[in-house]
């Protein structure tokens, strides 16, 4: 017999039996698993031990599978797990049915969690949860990005004044801006600090997520600061970004001009930028 077919059939059966939802009995007798090998036949090629039946031995792999992946996803989504509480395991089981791991790297398992939240049935506070998952996923993503050199105050001082009008400022690679409709950053902050999270509410919020010296940070932004920073990230010149921010702002121009200077200082100190392109 062809080894590929024999081994392949056995492996597809075992894989399907491990990943199937429900009790061990429900799994091995499900259509999806029995289409590979009927349980009556599978019983013939699994040996019972002195203390465990065939299905109990298979059940060890089934329970370890879900426990492992529940733990892995909890590391990437601690506040999603907090929010869902007792429903978290059920959420992970449903997620794995739609998005089973297809990578050698467990880091990639979390990639579709926001998509799942967006489309799966029976998700409580879907919009809030989607934003929360997007924030947590981005933190994991930024954790693994390349470290880029940071623009220093000394380098900025060397740029001649006439160049600033057209200068573009390039952010570091490990940087992302968020524009949320809920208080997700406050919620995550509380969960990370082992505090009771605030009541979930609809609220426009803006956050910069970044890594400095290999540590992850989040900086809440005002609407005006977000507008200016998002223009810079989009590749607009610094002067265009400032003009746009002033035009969009509800603040008086002179107030905003002072704020722009403060923001820029803070962003440089926080290491948001890597270089100035003139």
């Amino acid at each position, binding site marked *: 017999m062809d080894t*590929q077919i024999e081994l392949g059939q056995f492996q*597809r059966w075992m*894989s399907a039996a*491990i990943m199937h939802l429900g009790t061990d009995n429900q799994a091995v007798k499900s259509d999806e698993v029995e289409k590979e090998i009927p349980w009556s036949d599978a019983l013939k090629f699994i*040996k019972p031990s002195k*203390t465990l039946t065939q299905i109990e031995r298979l059940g060890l792999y089934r329970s370890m599978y879900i426990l492992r992946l529940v733990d892995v996803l909890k590391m990437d989504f601690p506040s999603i797990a907090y929010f869902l509480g007792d429903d978290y395991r059920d959420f992970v089981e449903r997620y794995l049915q739609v998005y*089973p791991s297809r990578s050698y790297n467990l880091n990639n398992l979390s990639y579709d969690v926001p998509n799942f939240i967006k489309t799966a049935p029976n998700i409580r506070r879907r919009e809030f949860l989607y934003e929360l998952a997007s924030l947590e996923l981005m933190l994991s993503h930024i954790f693994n990005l390349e470290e880029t050199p940071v623009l220093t105050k000394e380098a900025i001082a060397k740029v001649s004044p006439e160049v600033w009008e057209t200068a573009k400022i390039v952010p570091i690679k490990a940087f992302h801006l968020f524009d949320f409709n809920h208080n997700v950053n406050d919620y995550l902050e509380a969960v990370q600090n082992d505090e009771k999270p605030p009541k979930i509410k609809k609220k426009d919020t803006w956050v910069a997520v970044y890594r400095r010296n290999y540590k992850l940070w989040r900086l809440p932004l005002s609407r005006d600061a977000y507008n200016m920073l998002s223009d810079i990230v989009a590749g607009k010149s610094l002067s265009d970004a400032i003009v746009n921010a002033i035009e969009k702002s509800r603040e008086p121009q002179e107030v905003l001009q002072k704020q722009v200077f403060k923001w820029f200082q803070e962003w440089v100190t926080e290491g948001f930028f890597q270089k100035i392109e003139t």
Partner: protein
Amino acid sequence: MSKNRWNFPDLGFGIGLRTVHYPTILSDNPPIDWFEIISENYLDTKGRPIYILDQIAEKYPIVMHGVSMSIGSTDPLDIPYLKKLKELANHIRAVWVSDHLCWSGVAGTNIHDLLPMVYNQESLKYTISRVRQVSEILERPLILENPSAYIEFTNSDITEWDFLATLAKEADCGILLDVNNIYVSSFNHDFDPKEYVDAIPSDRIVQYHLAGHTNNGTHIIDTHSDYVIDPVWQLYERSCKRTEGRSTLVEWDDDIPEFEVVHAEVLKAKAYRKQPEVIEVAEVAEVAVVGV
């Protein structure tokens, strides 16, 4: 007594590198002989994991130990993954690269477990061919570890130890002998662990693993969550009588205690085997390059 056939060095007594120990390792430079990393934790990242690893690899010999090669799977080998493994091995001058005698997924999915293989002539022939391909891609001999198992199959007509011994010979690969796994499987499958230990060709053994486990009465799970128990030390001692010093490592992955506790656990192995020679990091790197 015999050397391993590739003259891989005896690195002494190491532990698995785990993130909770990073601060201690980086600040104290503890006098430990070597570290083993979980390879996949350092692939696809240019962030903190590789930044930390680079610093540690400057000071200590590093061995790579993977969990996702899925050498026994009927899916095609994941060539991009293997190339990344090779790149990482070259980057950190890994002394050798190991994985497990198992499969971890099929039809494109990954269960992220070390799933048990069927041991028969067909799977042996298939696995030999796969190991040879992997060794060619990695440009170094693959070292394979015997896994713990909780299930076995009636269509296995070769013992695991005979399968592993024949595979090592025919595919020219090394063996990472996990003595705890032998104990765990012997309990779960009711065989004599001494027979297993005695059947492994000593010149193929490159490294030993030791670990604690969880005995549930009806079965044992390889949890890496406790101290090594005496019967496992005795198996280690038995194997060491046949192999001169081989690099020895304690794995601790759950309820991980402080660095000093895990280090002290592996140092207990000194009582059961010959002392290693002192080898500098630079010398180890040289051996790794020519060790194919």
